[in-house]
């Protein structure tokens, strides 16, 4: 479904991605692990159509993403990709509810189904009672769950989640994982999960390790 072939990305002298190839199928849950600064976020950004690799291609259902116009890519991201950033990515002026509804509304989803879907997602993530607050008024964990709710809202084909459980305790982290697994298993969403937690990656179908911009299947004996 989403495939990267030999992508390279560098920021000045830093080679963040060094000929990375990667692909993921519908319904698959893939964990990407690796040390900080190894290039995990960069990979997600490339996969999301946000950072154009200097060489290599990223394709979605066989179509090279970076051959599309900026506008097409935006629309693709809106409808097909759910992004969860490592850093806050909600619109600060909107309440959590509005933030979560935003992609649905922008994609033109009808009002009734918007409400139903949002309610289902937020119930599962246990953030229904803070939905009327703005991002500045809730805790880091609630914020992160709201970001995941937003990524899930549009029922995207791909979810790219960058350390979504970083600020969460084990129980809440479990909620998030369940939501992502639910998307993968029941809706056939491809989920790329960047994480540090071995516990989380053990639920995934595959685990890949990023080392200095190179991606490889995790050796069976993981020494972290």
């Amino acid at each position, binding site marked *: 479904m989403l495939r990267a072939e030999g992508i390279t990305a560098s920021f000045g002298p830093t080679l963040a991605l060094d000929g990375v190839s990667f692909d993921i199928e519908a319904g698959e849950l893939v964990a990407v692990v690796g040390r900080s600064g190894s290039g995990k976020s960069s990979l997600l950004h490339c996969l999301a159509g946000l950072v154009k690799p200097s060489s290599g291609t990223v394709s979605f259902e066989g179509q090279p993403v970076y051959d599309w116009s900026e506008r097409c890519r935006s629309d693709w991201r809106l409808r097909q990709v759910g992004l969860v*950033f490592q850093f806050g*990515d909600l619109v600060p002026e909107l309440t959590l509810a509005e933030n979560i509804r935003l992609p649905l509304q*922008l994609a033109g989803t009808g009002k009734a189904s918007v409400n139903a879907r949002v309610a289902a997602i937020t119930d599962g993530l246990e953030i229904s009672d803070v939905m009327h607050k703005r991002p500045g008024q809730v805790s880091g964990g609630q914020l992160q769950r709201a970001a995941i709710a937003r990524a899930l809202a549009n029922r995207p084909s791909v979810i790219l989640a960058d350390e979504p459980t970083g600020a969460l305790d084990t129980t809440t982290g479990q909620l998030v994982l369940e939501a992502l697994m639910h998307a993968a298993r029941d809706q056939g969403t491809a989920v790329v999960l960047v994480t540090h937690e071995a516990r989380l990656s053990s639920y995934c179908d595959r685990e890949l390790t990023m080392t200095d911009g190179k991606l490889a299947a995790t050796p069976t004996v993981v020494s972290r």
Partner: protein
Amino acid sequence: MMRLVLLGARLSLGAGRSGRLRLVLMATGSAVAAFVVLTALALSGLAEQQDVRAQRIAPALNARVIPEATLVGNVIADGWNGRELLRIVLAEAAPGASVPPGVERLPRDNEVVVSPALLELIETEPLVAQRFPQSVSGTIGTEGLVEPGQLLAYVGVSDASEIWQPATIERWGDATTTGNLDPRAARTVGLLVLLTLVAPVVMFMATCARLSATARTQRLAALRLIGLSPWRTQLVNSIELVIVGAGGSLLGLATWLTWRYLDPAVHVGTFSWYSSDLWPGPATMALALVALVALTVAVGLVGGRAGIRRPLEVRRERSVRAMSWWRAAPLAGGISLLAWSWHTSGQQGQFVSWMAPFALGMMATALGLVLAVPFGALVFGRALGRSSRPAAVLAGARLRHEPAVGGRVVAAMAIAIFAAGFAQVVLTSVDAAFAGTDENQVGSVFDLTAYGTTTDAARYAAISDLNLALPKLRLGPDQVDAIAATCVQLRAATTGAIPGCRDGRPLFVRSIQIGDSPSPVGTQADVDRALTLAGLPKSASSVDLTFPAGNGSFYAAVIIAPDLAPPTTQFTIPFPGSTYDPQAVVAGLAAVDPGAVWDSGITGVDRLDSARIYTGIVAVGTASALGVALLAIVIATLDRTIERAGPQARLAAIGTSASTIRAATALQVLPVSAAVLVASGAAAILGGSSYLRWGDPAINVPLGPIAALTALGVAAALLATLVAVVGTITRPLPHLLRTE
């Protein structure tokens, strides 16, 4: 589409308390700009509106008194402290005479109807009251005056014999009359004001449209990351800007209309107008408001580009700008061009070779001043970065990270100082052009046949308020009909000092043929000869008595001693313009010589009056420009204080001392601002020198006022620094530590 519009509206209207505060600040920006632009536009059309009034009021005169006349009268020009005081003397010749506009009934004998401004003068100034011994029977209404401050009197007399040179007043309203403003000059002045205002207003609007720039850029970047296309993101952005721009402009319009309504007669010093004359017309107003909204949107769209093009970097605050040296180019280029134009202005008459670099230089300098701030911030930020003091390092990093942010306001102020400084130069030059007629130099020329004797002169001297300045100097036996005198001599010859008399400046402007020079304009040699013939030492006064006229030749200040005057002579009788009574003069003249024919009343008051009005318009424009710039500083400082709160709280959270945070704030604001403001003052001086050297080499650049303007700007920068330092967050307030 509708969703995007709603989203834009939602984003701008409901963004929490600080968000709403900013929205109000932004709208205030548009409102102030709308107010100022509407006023400026209307001011430039004021002259025409006042012309219409002048034409409606002026009596249509028929120089002869015809038998069927119902109303006879004459218009006598008078003055008070450099302001025109019109006295219209009226006598009802037959029933059915028409009443002047704004007057209830014709003044009867010994009655006077005055304008409210004149009434106030009569009540407060005994010297003015002396001129109107008649009883005040009413005041002139709004529709009978050109401006609320106009000094106008309708004096009633019993019949035509009491009027000097009576004429038939056929009706009220004379299309050939114009107000005191030359419409062409007025348009030029209006344009100058608009230009003076445009730059600061645009910068001000830009400042306000870019308020909360960081927050907005972040928001746009967030929208882009969810998957909103650049175009649609800009649409959301522009909705917000339209709301702010349109809301603010309408608020400005409403305020402006309310002001016009609440203050129907505006006085700015001696400059005054009726609010109803301040009306640029609906089409112009609509156009101006639409332009303001468009400007707000354009500025906001341009400002939003970073968040739209580089959303990821913006979200992660990774946008350290590369230093671009070209930013310094416009200022350097502009200054060089101005210097070049200064150089060419020395060669008289080279209009094009002066004008081209001058105009280009002024524009490039203005642009350069705008760009100089981010450039200065980058350079200074780099320099600070080399320091090891934490405050300097912090300030340097901030300046390099966002070089343009604090600078917009400073740029507005810099432009205002540049424009206002240059306006000072133009004002000085306008003032100088009218300097020949300052208030006490107003003279009256009398044409006397068979002038009397010294006894008559003494009788003139007895006329109340009239300082008859006839020097008791002996003339030589030859046929010289003129004598020149210094101020000292004149003072000796009259009862007291003559206000405004200055050696080297003609007190009595009259080109008279001195000696036998064929030219109507005397030369220095003519003056000398006249003095010799009069038995006066040349060295004593000749130089003092002359002044360079336009073409380099000399006029002599000339007084003719009455007892030695030939039978028909023109006399120039000087008097202090503010303290004389034309009617008393008429009476005095009649007493001395009933057969005297005298010419032309007071001269030069109308020129003075237009100088006053031009000065008024330019002063109002300059004051508005500065006011706008000051407001911009206040608004932007508030905005920056809000924006800086988060980062400052985080600095405090990691244990940075309060004094370090404050020092870093001050370092970010003050040095660059002060440097740019001083540079703008210097640029105004350079531009002004070039302008004066070309057009008016005799005048010096008004360094004082420009320095004062610059000092005002630097004071504003200090104030901004103070506000920023006071508003600095030095404690790790929990609500500020949350980014989102």
